[in-house]
């Protein structure tokens, strides 16, 4: 199936390996991802702190282009971009007056007809578990993974329409489908501080620390994310948190599609595993190819 793909700004930079993994996985699953032509930044999270109309109009331009190109489904890998697009579509659907305003601002027609899904939901629900399992040739046997959804992917429930705002399971099912173990833990949908981590460092450090601690105490060997910002916060700031709070976390963090790519037979080099801050090679060597490491050592 053809999907309009909205990578968002971070998939070209800090989330580049997520973008690569998405494309590898999509190819295996027979998904045709087409980047929305000349897309702009959706404004998250600064636009909605500043101006209501701007927060709606920036995503609306991208969605209008996707509609004009005839796409029925838009797939969005960043939870923040996804939330802004969903909120825009909901606001336009709810009020003809808002629809008119947005049309005037973006100078394009926008009907809010295309379905907007997170990349996680596209993979987990549209493509489905059966197809995923068919592609697994290197099961992640025994790998204990905490599926971390964060907040924006699942809330507010009425708009995001995820499976559950407090205990979502889509990513857990995918992880199990890859042969790994999805852990039952408490911080699945807690907030990581999003972009506040930069201007309010104290805030971020506490939130990220709590997430890591809870995952670790449930035996997580890795955490899977479905958002480039969650990934960056948990991965890049782990060392800073250790230095600041005297902890000693070394938990590899993965975009969920990276785990899929590994199980589908790709190697870490294929998507850029070495770009992670917390080294994951050893864990992968141990889990994915139990024979390789001992043979090579």
């Amino acid at each position, binding site marked *: 199936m053809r999907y309009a793909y909205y990578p968002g700004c971070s998939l070209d930079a800090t989330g580049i390996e997520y973008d690569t993994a998405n494309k590898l996985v999509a190819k295996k699953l027979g998904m045709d991802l087409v980047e929305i032509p000349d897309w702009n930044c959706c404004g998250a999270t*600064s636009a909605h702190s500043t101006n209501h109309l701007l927060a709606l109009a*920036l995503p609306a*331009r991208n969605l209008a282009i996707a509609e004009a190109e005839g796409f029925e489904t838009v797939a969005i890998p960043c939870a923040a971009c996804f939330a802004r697009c969903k909120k825009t579509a909901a606001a336009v659907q709810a009020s003809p007056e808002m629809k008119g305003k947005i049309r005037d601002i973006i100078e394009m027609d926008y009907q809010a007809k295309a379905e907007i899904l997170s990349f996680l939901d596209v993979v987990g629900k549209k493509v489905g578990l059966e197809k995923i399992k068919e592609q697994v040739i290197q099961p992640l046997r025994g790998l204990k993974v905490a599926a971390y959804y964060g907040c924006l992917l699942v809330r507010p429930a009425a708009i995001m329409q995820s499976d559950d705002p407090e205990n979502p399971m889509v990513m857990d099912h995918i992880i199990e489908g890859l042969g790994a173990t999805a852990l039952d833990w408490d911080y699945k949908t807690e907030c990581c501080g999003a*972009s506040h981590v930069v201007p*309010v460092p104290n805030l971020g450090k506490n939130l990220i620390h709590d997430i890591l601690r809870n995952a670790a105490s449930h035996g997580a060997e890795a955490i899977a994310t479905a958002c480039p910002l969650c990934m960056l916060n948990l991965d890049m700031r782990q*060392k800073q948190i250790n230095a600041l709070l005297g902890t000693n976390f070394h938990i590899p963090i993965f975009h969920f599609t990276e785990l899929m790519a590994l199980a589908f037979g790709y190697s870490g080099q294929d998507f850029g595993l070495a770009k992670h801050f917390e080294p994951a090679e050893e864990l992968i060597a141990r889990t994915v190819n139990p024979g390789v490491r001992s043979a090579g050592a």
Partner: protein
Amino acid sequence: MEKVDLSNIGNEVHADITQLAKNAGVELSSCYQCGKCSAGCPVGFIMDESPRRVIRLLQLGLLDDALRTRAIWLCATCDTCSTRCPKGVAVAALMESLRQEAKRRGITTEKNINLFNDIFLNNVRLFGRSPEVILSALYNLRSGNFFQDMDAAAHLFKSGKAHFMPGRIKNTQAVRRIFNKCLEKEGQH
């Protein structure tokens, strides 16, 4: 909290509050102050007033006090509060409206968050996208936190996660027109 005199709050203030709540889709009188929103708020521990108390300020007509809280800036829009409110109050949407209104009135209690937002949006206005490197560099420079995240920067560049050339879209004019129109229409929503 010290004693407050509510007898001389003018009608305009109440009208402003009603309008703000309406924009956020919130009926202020629905909130019965149970505090469930605030119990689950991940940011509550550094807020000056809890989300529940911000709502109480509005119920009492103390708009100015609500607009001067740090809480409305610190709110991370995670929507835990709204999801759990037994009365269906859209707390997060209300926090957002208050933040926009505070900004409009030039009340920016959390200077660094406001600065971060301004730099972010200025990049989007210029390039159509938000180049992360430029965002962090300008933010560090202008906030005076020169060395923030410098330890991570080396890895970001080495691994190709950060680059100096900003990605920009072709039709930057379209985005600029969106900015101009939205800021023109301000206050009409």
